[in-house]
């Protein structure tokens, strides 16, 4: 059993067979065969090895002719490893004794050799493990080619393990069968993490190196609550997590029964329960859970990881989608951009290195220094305001002057829209975040300027 600690990005616990997704997308979806299939599996293995060796040797010839025999010889060594009769023997013995598929047995054997090589004291020799990964890939490619399996032909629930997942790979995951994922790379705000949240599957990222410790088909646990990946759990751990899983299911069920009950305190005060979102499509999840509106729509995710600032229309479409999904009555609080310039590739030219960017030129301060950017977002929000009940929220306000400046810009944008005869809600409620100490102290003065407060408590807990 190996336990890795990473960054939890979506909660929940999943226990399932690992499916390794490397950069070339080779997967080992199936790990067992029946006793009657052993001979057939031997045959598949031999063909796979033969074909891989043929391909490597032909590459050897090409490279030797192009750049010299000594380069080609590297591939010659690869071919020799592929054809190593002892490798074949080891794999066959796993197939016949444990009824593993050729792919899984190959992977297990290669993992063992890779570990041995990586543990060599000579760093240069140890780095030859890369060659073994390459060899494994060569043979796997041939074996899997025979079966033509891939992410699209999954037939049982799996946990995806990868060094990293691109946002597009993540987006394409079939969540009916991909129940969780864990990656070596990535951070909380990487796109992959954000997508995990949107797909609602437990995920842990930033785990550091673990791929060489796991073989496709191994049982793993992804603990999206604690941010753990557990490879090959022992019986006790497995039992504990199975219990956690049933607890979560019954908790979900009990919460489900509360869904439509009114949220009223014992002395009769009704409290509105609203959901927080990062992406428009999450609106549906909120409605499913009975949210009475969106309490905070963090718009910065529209801006992240893009080469250019999203256009007014792109922003408008996103805001409109949310507000239309929520309907005319449910409030949607849209918070303006709350990011530092360091997070925006499109601003790399504007970005001034700072000692502590968290307290520096970010959020509303960045917007007030980049009026064009701010006005574009305000125009998009105001245009969307005719479709429902949008409320506008400013982040990180620390002085009354700042708040008044921000409001003044809203007025200017309203005037522009009015002149252009573009419809918007002229009475759009404006609120401010109370998230820095000065705003808390000035809250009495701030209250005279706005329709509502949103209190960001985590800034006060330092």
């Amino acid at each position, binding site marked *: 059993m190996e336990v890795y600690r990473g960054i939890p990005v979506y909660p929940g616990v999943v226990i399932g067979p690992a499916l390794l997704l490397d950069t070339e997308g080779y997967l080992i979806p199936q790990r067992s065969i029946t006793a009657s299939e052993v001979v057939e599996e031997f045959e598949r293995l031999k063909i796979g090895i033969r074909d891989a060796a043929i391909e490597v040797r032909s590459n050897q010839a090409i490279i030797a002719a192009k750049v010299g025999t*000594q*380069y080609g*010889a*590297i591939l*010659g*060594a690869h071919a*020799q*490893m592929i054809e*190593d*009769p*002892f*490798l074949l023997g080891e794999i066959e013995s796993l197939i016949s004794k444990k009824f593993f598929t050729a792919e899984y047995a190959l992977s297990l054997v290669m993992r063992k*050799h890779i570990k*041995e*090589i990586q543990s*060599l*004291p*000579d760093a*240069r*020799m140890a780095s*030859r493990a890369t*060659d*073994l990964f390459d060899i494994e890939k060569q043979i796997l490619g041939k074996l899997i080619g025979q079966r033509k399996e891939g992410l699209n032909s999954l037939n049982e629930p799996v946990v995806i393990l990868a060094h990293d997942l691109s946002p597009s790979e993540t987006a394409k995951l079939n969540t009916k069968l991909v129940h969780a994922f864990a990656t070596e790379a990535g951070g909380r705000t990487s796109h992959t993490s954000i997508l995990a949240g949107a797909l609602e599957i437990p995920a842990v990222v930033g785990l550091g190196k673990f791929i060489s410790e796991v073989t496709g088909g191994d049982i793993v646990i992804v603990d999206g609550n604690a941010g753990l990946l557990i490879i090959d759990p022992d019986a006790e751990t497995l039992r504990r997590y199975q219990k956690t899983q049933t607890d979560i299911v019954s908790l979900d069920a009990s919460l489900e029964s509360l869904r439509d009950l009114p949220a009223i305190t014992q002395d009769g005060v009704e409290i509105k329960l609203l959901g927080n979102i990062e992406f428009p499509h999450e609106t549906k999840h909120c409605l499913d859970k009975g949210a009475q509106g969106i309490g905070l729509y963090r718009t910065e995710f529209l801006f992240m990881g893009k080469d250019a600032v999203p256009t007014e229309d792109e922003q408008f479409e996103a805001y409109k989608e949310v507000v239309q999904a929520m309907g005319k009555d449910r409030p949607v609080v849209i918070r303006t951009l709350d990011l530092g310039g360091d997070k925006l590739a499109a601003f790399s030219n504007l970005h001034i290195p700072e000692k502590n960017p968290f307290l520096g030129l970010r959020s509303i301060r960045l917007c007030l220094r980049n009026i064009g950017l701010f006005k574009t977002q305000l125009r998009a929000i105001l245009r969307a305001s005719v479709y429902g009940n949008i409320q506008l929220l400013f982040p990180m306000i620390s002085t009354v002057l700042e708040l008044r400046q921000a409001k003044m810009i809203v007025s200017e944008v309203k005037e522009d829209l009015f002149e252009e005869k573009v419809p918007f809600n002229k009475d759009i409620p404006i609120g401010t975040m109370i998230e820095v100490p000065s705003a808390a102290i000035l809250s009495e003065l701030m209250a005279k300027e706005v329709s509502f407060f949103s209190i960001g408590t985590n800034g006060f807990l330092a």
Partner: protein
Amino acid sequence: MEDASQELLKSVVKIKNPNGFHMRPKAAFVEAASRFVSEVKLIWEGQVFNGKSMFELMLVAAGEDSEVTLEVFGSDSHLALQELEKVLAEEDVSVLD
């Protein structure tokens, strides 16, 4: 294999290659060893490795000037030993591995 000529032959060989016993000399060694019916073993730092398995030889991290012991056993052991000593002694000065 009741051949009377069968005997266990041993030889200690010094690695002359400036890059040590790296991947290409290993590949050449395995290729040569596989041409003989004799069993070929390579002993390095007390560990015994099968001379016909590239995978096993990958674990031999013998650097320049270190010594490895060759053990050959089988009907063509004399010829095999001669040939393999030659392969091991070959100086490959290229920096590739």
